[in-house]
């Protein structure tokens, strides 16, 4: 049967008649005499470097953008880029947001951003640290150092004795003109009328903490967290030397 099929298929075999062959040869010769077309591969070869260059440029630009965004802080144009890369990196390392928020806090302190911004950033950093499930991996000590720096910056301010809102003295102090850091006010400073107003952060806190009225909001919040039974950071004591340890305090980091 197989032989039969092959025999029958053999009927499909044809031979090109000489006239047709002659016509074909003439057409082929005409094609060969025409100018050699641009080889297909050479065209591909011209296109290929362009494509490779475009891909490399895209990768480099993306990487450069991501790198530049690493130093961005809240409110800057590249900050959304940083958030995207951070979201991606969070899949690998859950502590990345906490790291970033603390870095941003450090940068804002370096730039002497105004206190409201620093306070908001500190809040974000604390939230980010609180969101990390593995507490050992969280750079809490860096957060504490950042808090210390905030207090130091406030304490080192040349117009620390001036009331909030007064113009800084023109003593030639090396301070950026756009700085809006208010002076750190020591306990006992300020008028008596404000001493009882301890700020929203202290609402519901029991006991007499003897808070000064004009103590900066950061210190007030730290005092509130201390009241919740957390460790008293050294910066609280430096900012507020008259603080008396309360029964809920677990440890005291001596200044």
């Amino acid at each position, binding site marked *: *049967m*197989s032989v039969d*099929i*092959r025999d*029958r*298929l*053999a*009927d*499909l*075999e*044809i*031979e*090109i008649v000489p006239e*047709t*062959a002659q*016509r*074909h*040869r003439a*057409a*082929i*010769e005409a*094609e*060969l005499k025409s100018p*050699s*077309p641009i*080889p*297909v*591969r*050479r065209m591909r070869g011209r296109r290929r470097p362009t494509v490779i260059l475009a891909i490399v440029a895209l990768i480099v630009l993306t990487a450069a953008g991501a790198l530049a965004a690493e130093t961005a802080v809240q409110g800057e144009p590249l900050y959304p880029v940083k958030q995207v890369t951070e979201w991606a990196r969070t899949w690998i390392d859950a502590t990345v947001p906490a790291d970033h928020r603390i870095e941003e806090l450090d940068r804002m302190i370096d730039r002497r951003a105004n206190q409201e911004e620093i306070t908001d950033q500190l809040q974000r950093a604390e939230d980010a640290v609180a969101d990390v499930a593995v507490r050992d991996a969280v750079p809490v000590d860096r957060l504490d150092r950042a808090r210390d720096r905030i207090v130091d910056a406030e304490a080192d301010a040349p117009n620390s004795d001036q009331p909030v809102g007064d113009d800084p003295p023109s003593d030639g102090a090396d301070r950026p003109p756009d700085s809006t850091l208010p002076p750190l006010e020591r306990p006992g400073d300020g008028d008596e009328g404000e001493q009882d107003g301890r700020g929203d952060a202290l609402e519901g806190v029991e006991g007499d903490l003897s808070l000064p009225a004009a103590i900066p909001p950061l210190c007030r919040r730290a005092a509130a967290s201390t009241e919740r039974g957390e460790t008293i950071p050294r910066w609280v004591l430096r900012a507020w030397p008259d603080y008396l340890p309360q029964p809920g305090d677990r440890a005291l980091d001596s200044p």
Partner: protein
Amino acid sequence: MTRARDALEEHVDGVRTRSEEAFSAVYALMANGLASYANGMLRDRLAAEDSVQQAFLELARAAPNLRGDGRSLRAWLYRSVRYSCLDEIRRRERRPEVVTDQVPGAGYRDEIDLPDPALQAALLALSERQRSLLVLRHVVGLSGAQVAKAMETNRTAVYAATARAERRLRQLLEGVESEHVAASVSVEREVLDER
């Protein structure tokens, strides 16, 4: 086949440089095989010859980029014919079928060069790939390796697929022929009844 392959290898360099002598020699060696293949695919002698010419014209344009030896050149030509056959088949499928009493022109020449109607019907029922395999193996007479290179597959797949295609063609032929026998018997009966 061996002789043809050796001859092709002699002309590969000439083809790359677009030499008329090399093209002429390659045409002499390959044209009939390519035409038979196209004829098996299209069941149309004129369209088959056109596809052969088209393949050589494309070779003339792409010759400077040709790589490989004589086997690659052979596979390149068969692939080119195959693609132009597929284009032609697709064109025919798109073309609306018009019933006419006029003399068949281009596109209606299927039965001209294939006197075996049962084989024609059975080949039509095969897939394009099965038809290609059978024609390349049993009409053109290519080896399994050559068919594999032309069809861009491997030799084992060619042997297995060819066996399946032969089996299928055999079944189809048996079915078609039995229908033909039944049809011819009924026609004979009608003639006898009329008498």
